[in-house]
């Protein structure tokens, strides 16, 4: 199996994971907005922290994509 073919499979899985994380972030944002408007400020910082953790995971995966690309081009 070529490195590019492996990459296609890998990116499909990665895309599904990143997509799910973004949907989760979207949900966190709607929860935060509702909490902000109703004055329930206790939930805002945990929601923002959770969203940041998901961002870091996504950024880590994107970094992996860049590294994989670099290796694939060097193949």
């Amino acid at each position, binding site marked *: 199996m070529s490195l*590019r*073919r492996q*990459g*296609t499979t890998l*990116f*499909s899985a*990665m*895309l599904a994971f*990143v*997509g799910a*994380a*973004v949907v989760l*972030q*979207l949900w*966190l*944002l709607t929860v*935060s*907005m509702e*909490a*902000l*408007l*109703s*004055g*329930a*400020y*206790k939930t*805002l*910082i945990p*929601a*923002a922290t959770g*969203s*940041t953790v*998901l*961002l870091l995971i*996504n*950024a880590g*995966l*994107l970094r992996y*994509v860049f590294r994989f*690309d670099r290796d694939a*081009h*060097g193949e």
Partner: protein
Amino acid sequence: MNTLDEEDGCAGCKATVTPKWRQDFPIEWEGDHYVSRREMVKFLTLGSLLLASANWVTVVASRLLHRGSYVNRYIGSASALDQAGSMLFRYPTDGDPCIAIRTPEGKVVAYSQVCTHLSCAVVYDKAENGLFCPCHHGLFNLAGQPIAGPPTRPLPRVQLEQRGDQLFAVGMEAL
């Protein structure tokens, strides 16, 4: 890595080097999927960054909205409240409408007037002995708990202090 091609006049490189633009527009399906999924991951990560930033904006907004709040504020006299049954005031800022009520037991309670469903203003309903939201027929009891209609969360309670005949708002109970 050298990306020169025949357009750059590099005849010797022609067979070995693929131009950069061609890497993004491959001919084969496998290569096309490879590029589009990679681009999608980049796009979604950018979206993820924006969503995380928006979440922190809500945190900052909450701090700005209620900075310097919870000072003592005179809201009216207890005798005026006895006559009217309920009284409207603003606390902790001029943008936060609240309502004070004299309960049938003789206690004075106060809540935010903003319905926890869709932010309509609740009014005192003497017949129902509660706070009624006319927008979607939500009803809260005099402890601030939702008892009918769409609201699911209680109304934020305003802490009151009575000094003689004068009523002061002194804080909000944390939700």
